[in-house]
């Protein structure tokens, strides 16, 4: 509260009081129009109760300057106190109790203000007039008349000026100040205020003549027009202008006090109606603007989402699409609307997805095919939900192009397959020496048999039974070599992974064919614990063989590197919960060190001098791709057990 502001306030208050000092009852400030109190209430609402002091000073100064009769100091002080306290308390109650917004943003703010403009002046008027009645300045017989004039004067003063000041203050505070710029709107405002002037002229001018009451209703027309078009901002100006016009008319016509009071009552009704209408219009504008903004936001979100969104009606015709749909199907919106959705989407499950359970929640469907107008197709993921739009049941379809994801998945799968194959080549390379020996054996035998047969053929007497025996054996040994070659070739296949149903024992047998040379040559005792009646597995057998061979070879190397006495490997297979087949490879080697165990399955973890550290990492991804998990446990008697469980095939 700066002194300059107080001085300015006081000066404004006194000026307003002076301007409106018309028909003062009994020569004191009881006038039919008190705009000064409108100013006071506005200042109190904005600045708070401390301005009540300034108000007290201002009323004091004003009474001293304007009173036409001498007033006692006590009555003067008491009257000013009543006004300052009454409006101070009224404004403060408004601020504190009802979340009043001084910008009058909601209609309820205006209603609260008008209610306060009615009640506070009533109380102030009675107290004020009572003070002067007590001093004898106002006879008690005229108490009712004086109090009601005071009441009406203040009520209309507040109702007209306070909203105006608050709205103008708010308008001035918005940066930049909003001034209507387009000429049409300015023209309208001009016409509106011109018609207001005309109406005033009609009411009080030559037509109204000496019966201005008769035509007062005409003033409603321009005011309602202005309020309806310009909202509260227009209404406050119009009401103030009308009041101004009214006051001017009072002066010109020199109306009686009773007429002025009647006019002021009419004016009050006019002001309240106009202001409330203006507030309603502003509120509605704001609501519409908020709605359209939220619609715009929603629309921009729908425009921005990469997923296609289609709304279809109960006849499955397309009602609306977002731009993503146009992109997905390479076709413009106008060529989509009204078309049957099944022209765009097909799939075995499409009936269920389109009929789908009612409900706003999305139902996630499987994969469908989107069909472009050139008949090319692309994979989509479809989610549907039900909504009522304009009271009509609609289904909302959300389409996601999953071609890219598919490609990425295919690439990842191809990488995994290639990595697994490279790993198999590496394993085979490491086993080359042992496998070469294993191949040399039958080859040596075959050569020996065939050479022997050739010798027999060179002899005079043909020993046919012996020849047959030799050739039989040669074939048998060649087949033995063939098995190893086949196992190796299968193992090194580079084809696309494919799953087949296979016996567990067959997998273990194939792995042992490949691992046996190393097991035998290193004198490793091999034990098999295969439970009878195991369910079959549906797996990529080569990949599972790779995992098992990798585990067996790890066990061999671990035991050889540690020079384990009586090295032994146990391969066990049994059924666990949920028809899962567990395959485990145990050794009696040194086991896995603590520091290695934590990152055992990470790539590039190795304890071997020439190891890449990829074996277990690849093995684990293979097992995981088959719905299992590769695990390591330490054996109580030393050594490690690596195991994995795969879902058993339910069928025979």
């Amino acid at each position: 509260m700066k002194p300059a502001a107080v001085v300015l306030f006081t000066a404004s208050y006194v000026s307003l009081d002076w301007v409106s000092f018309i028909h003062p009852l009994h020569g004191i400030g009881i006038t039919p129009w008190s705009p000064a109190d409108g100013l006071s209430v506005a200042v109190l609402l904005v600045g708070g109760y401390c301005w009540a002091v300034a108000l007290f000073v201002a009323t004091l100064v004003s009474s001293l300057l304007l009173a036409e009769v001498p007033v006692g100091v006590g009555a003067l002080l008491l009257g000013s106190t009543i006004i300052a306290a009454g409006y101070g308390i009224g404004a403060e109650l408004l601020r504190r109790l009802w979340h009043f917004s001084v910008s009058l943003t909601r209609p309820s703010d205006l209603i609260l203000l008008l209610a306060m403009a009615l009640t506070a002046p009533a109380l102030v008027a009675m107290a004020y007039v009572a003070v002067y009645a007590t001093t004898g300045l106002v006879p008690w017989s005229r108490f009712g008349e004086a109090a009601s004039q005071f009441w009406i004067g203040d009520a209309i003063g507040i109702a007209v000026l306070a909203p105006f000041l608050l709205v103008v203050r708010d308008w001035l505070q918005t940066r930049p100040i909003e001034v209507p710029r387009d000429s049409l709107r300015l023209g309208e405002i001009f016409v509106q205020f011109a018609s207001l002037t005309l109406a005033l002229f009609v009411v009080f001018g030559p037509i109204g003549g000496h019966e201005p009451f008769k035509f007062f209703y005409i003033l409603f027309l321009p005011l309602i027009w202005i309020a309806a078009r310009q909202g509260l901002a227009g209404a406050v100006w119009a009401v103030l202008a009308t009041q101004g016009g009214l006051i001017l008319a009072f002066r010109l016509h020199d109306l009686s006090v009773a007429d002025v009071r009647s006019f002021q009552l009419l004016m009050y009704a006019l002001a309240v109606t106009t202001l409330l209408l203006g507030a309603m219009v502003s509120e509605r504008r704001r609501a519409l603007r908020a709605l359209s903004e939220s619609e715009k936001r929603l629309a921009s979100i729908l425009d921005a989402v990469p997923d296609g969104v289609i709304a279809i009606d109960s006849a499955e015709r397309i009602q609306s699409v977002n731009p993503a749909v146009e992109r997905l199907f390479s076709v413009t919106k106008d060529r989509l609307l009204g078309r049957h959705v099944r022209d765009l989407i097909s799939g075995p499950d499409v009936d269920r997805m389109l009929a789908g359970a009612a409900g706003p929640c999305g139902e996630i469907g499987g994969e469908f095919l989107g069909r472009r107008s050139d008949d090319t197709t692309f994979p989509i993921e479809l989610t549907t939900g039900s909504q009522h739009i304009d009271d009509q049941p609609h289904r909302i379809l959300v389409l996601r192009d999953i071609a890219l994801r598919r490609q990425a998945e295919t690439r990842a799968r191809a990488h995994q397959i290639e990595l697994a194959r490279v790993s198999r080549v590496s394993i085979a390379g490491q086993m080359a020496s042992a496998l070469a020996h294993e191949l040399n054996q039958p080859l040596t035998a075959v050569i020996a048999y065939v050479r022997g047969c050739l010798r027999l053929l060179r002899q005079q007497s043909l020993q046919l039974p012996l020849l047959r025996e030799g050739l039989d054996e040669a074939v048998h040994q060649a087949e033995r070599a063939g098995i190893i070659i086949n196992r190796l070739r299968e193992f090194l296949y580079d084809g696309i992974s494919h799953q087949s149903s296979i016996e567990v024992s067959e997998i273990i047998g194939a792995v042992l064919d490949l691992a046996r040379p190393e097991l035998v040559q290193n004198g490793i005792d091999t034990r098999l614990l295969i439970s009878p009646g195991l369910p079959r597995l549906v797996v990529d057998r080569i990949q599972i063989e790779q995992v098992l061979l990798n585990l067996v070879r790890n066990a061999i190397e671990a035991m050889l590197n540690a020079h384990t006495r009586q090295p032994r490997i146990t391969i066990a297979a049994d059924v666990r919960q949920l028809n899962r087949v567990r395959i485990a490879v145990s050794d009696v080697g040194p086991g896995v060190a603590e520091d290695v165990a934590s990152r055992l399955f990470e790539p590039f973890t190795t304890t071997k001098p020439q190891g890449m550290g990829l074996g277990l990492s690849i093995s684990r991804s293979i097992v995981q791709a088959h719905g299992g998990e590769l695990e390591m446990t330490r054996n109580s008697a030393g050594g490690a057990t690596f195991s994995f469980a795969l879902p058993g095939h339910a069928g025979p």
Partner: protein
Amino acid sequence: MSKSENKTVFIVDDDAGVRRGLSFLLRSAGHAVETFASAREFLERYDNTRRGCVLLDVWMPQSSGLDLQRELQARSWDLPVIFITGHGTIPTAIAALRAGALDFIEKPIHEDALLGSIERALDWEDRHYVEAAAMAELRKRAASLTPREREILDLVAQAEPNKIIAQHLGISFRTVEIHRSHIIEKLGAKTTSELVRMAIALESATVRDAS
């Protein structure tokens, strides 16, 4: 072929296919063959008096061929050994040959190499057998020599003339001549040079025994 009569090729290999195949080939080439699945089986079943050669796989799980070779030497079973291996690495070959192996053949086996090698082994075994028999006879005869005759034989082996021997032993030239005729008679030498050879053979055998 006459040489291989009453001689047997003993095949020791853990791989049944290889064992039987080699056996078939050697039998078709006219050899008598006996097969053993392991070194232990050979040591248990082999009769020391049997003649022939051993075809031995270097690489066997329980005990290696080199181990068996050492064991044969320790038992003084003088069978010639031919090694077979698919892992014909130079260090293994050198170790085998150092230890007295006669030959070293790689799988898959070349027929001529195998048969040639077996021929050589049996020849060697023949020679070794004749020499060993002659030596045994010589030692038996040498055992009948008196200490004085033995002394004189040692000097004969050093190619000393009778006159020097007489001076050395402090006996007459005539006495030396009588001893010498006894020695010749006991050992069955026909000429002086043969006697000298016998004397050298005996001496080197004694040295070998002592070592």
